[in-house]
């Protein structure tokens, strides 16, 4: 067989496999969205779920998912940036940093149900934080933080060496060099990575079953005092997220329209995750143009 034929066959196989993956993905997305889209309405997105009657919505769950995401990012962004900067710019290559890097890798690929159980034992029970948004955010931190560290570290390493040296050669401190020269160049990659990682957090269910809990107290959406029991902003209340809600109504939903609700909620979830993905790319490119000041 000539090299040319071999090349053709290999190319053909690669194309076929890629096409297959695209078809499966598109089919899956299409199926979920098609099945659920009919059920999505303003009422569905904003009203509270019903236990036994039809016509329940997913308003609180949607809010919980977004709020939990924000809480998680409030914890992980500063820590992840700090640790990522340290790993990329300050840590000396050696056994210690290699070990830290290994732990970071392992943590981020931990099965989420294990993290959920760990959260139940340690965060919920041992620390006594109970089923709460805060417990959920801490559990999500366990795999979101390693991602943030890696995203930051890789983004900084991607900054051309000459950029950093040019700043140091002007007599600027290491810290000023990082904040004023390197981070602006790394920001698009960091933002893109963060939003992609946020997509995973948003769709997470297993880690939250036993940490953020499977119920939501009656929320009073006119009460914005974060310390109040019934306020949606209270981080110490239990909170069922959208993904957990889908799991719950699928397994034990009593409402007559439970399956439609699950389909609608799944479609909403998928659409949100898609929005995160495309949003991340678009926003990353926008920031890149803005920060590099290319017109």
């Amino acid at each position: 067989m000539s090299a040319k034929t071999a090349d053709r066959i290999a190319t053909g196989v690669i194309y076929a496999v890629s096409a297959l993956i695209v078809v499966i993905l598109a089919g899956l997305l299409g199926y979920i969205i098609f099945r659920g889209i009919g059920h999505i309405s303003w009422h569905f997105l904003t009203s509270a779920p019903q236990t036994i009657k039809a016509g329940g919505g997913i308003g609180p769950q949607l809010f919980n998912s977004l709020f939990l995401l924000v809480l998680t990012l409030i914890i992980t962004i500063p820590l992840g940036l700090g640790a990522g900067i340290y790993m990329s710019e300050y840590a000396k290559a050696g056994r210690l940093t290699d070990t830290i890097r290994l732990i970071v890798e392992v943590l981020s690929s931990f099965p989420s149900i294990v993290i959920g159980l760990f959260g139940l034992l340690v965060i919920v029970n041992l620390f006594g934080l109970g089923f709460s948004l805060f417990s959920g955010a801490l559990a999500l931190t366990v795999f979101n933080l390693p991602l943030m560290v890696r995203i930051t570290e890789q983004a900084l390493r991607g900054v051309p060496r000459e950029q950093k040296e040019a700043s140091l050669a002007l007599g600027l401190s290491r810290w000023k060099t990082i904040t004023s020269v390197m981070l602006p160049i790394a920001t698009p990659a960091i933002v893109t990575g963060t939003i992609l990682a946020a997509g995973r957090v948003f769709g997470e269910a297993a880690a939250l079953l036993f940490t953020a809990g499977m119920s939501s107290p009656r929320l009073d959406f006119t009460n914005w005092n974060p310390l109040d029991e019934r306020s949606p902003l209270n981080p110490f209340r239990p909170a069922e997220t959208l993904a957990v809600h889908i799991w719950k109504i699928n397994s034990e939903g009593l409402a007559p329209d439970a399956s439609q609700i699950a389909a609608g909620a799944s479609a909403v979830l998928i659409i949100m995750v898609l929005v995160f993905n495309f949003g991340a790319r678009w926003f990353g490119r926008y920031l890149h143009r803005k920060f590099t000041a290319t017109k």
Partner: protein
Amino acid sequence: METQSLTAKNIHVHYGEKEAIKGVSLDFAPREVTALIGPSGCGKSTFLRSLNRMNDTIDNARVTGEIWIDGENINEPGVDVVLLRQKIGMVWQRPNPFHKSIYENIAFGPRYHGIKNKKQLDHIVEDCLRKAALWDETKDRLHNSALALSGGQQQRLCIARSIAVKPKVILMDEPASALDPVSTAKVEELISELKQDYTIVIVTHNMHQAARVSDKTAFFYMGKVVEYDRTEKIFTNPSEKATDDYISGRFG
């Protein structure tokens, strides 16, 4: 005789176990251009980068020896590296302007070093761009991205950026090798201009360039200086056979 503005004494550089510079001592006189020439891999960049302690940023590099500037040995552990780098500017082979506007590229350094006054900064920007013969080409678009400039313009901007923090010495590592002939000529002209105010050390592979712009030339070979003398002498009547072989293109 005037005091030397930069003196390197018995410099050794190791990358891990490997010795890249094996005991180099050179004096650089003020307001002179010194060219470092030699075959690829002989250690010119390594030596140049130890002069402003840029090798500190490479994890496995170790520099020993003394480097004197302003009566101070800057290759000592206690020295404030940040402050000393302000005295020694640097220009790289590939133009590396910051991903900022033309104005910001120049104002960035001085502002960090304490000049906050807008008028003063404007003045510095204009002055440096004029010195780099770039003012006329850029004065109407100071706030546009520096990345939109041509390679040659970018390199002159990098030179302007380095003089904005008022260094005593400027180190240049093959500053024109990535440029077209016209831009190269401009950069060479600029070097001759800057010589009146600064001590310049330039690495080059271009023998004609070394002959045109430099007052003294050091020939490096395998981590050592084989010969260091006035440029005319090196190019017309070198003392060492290896130098002669190299400049006449018989090796390297």
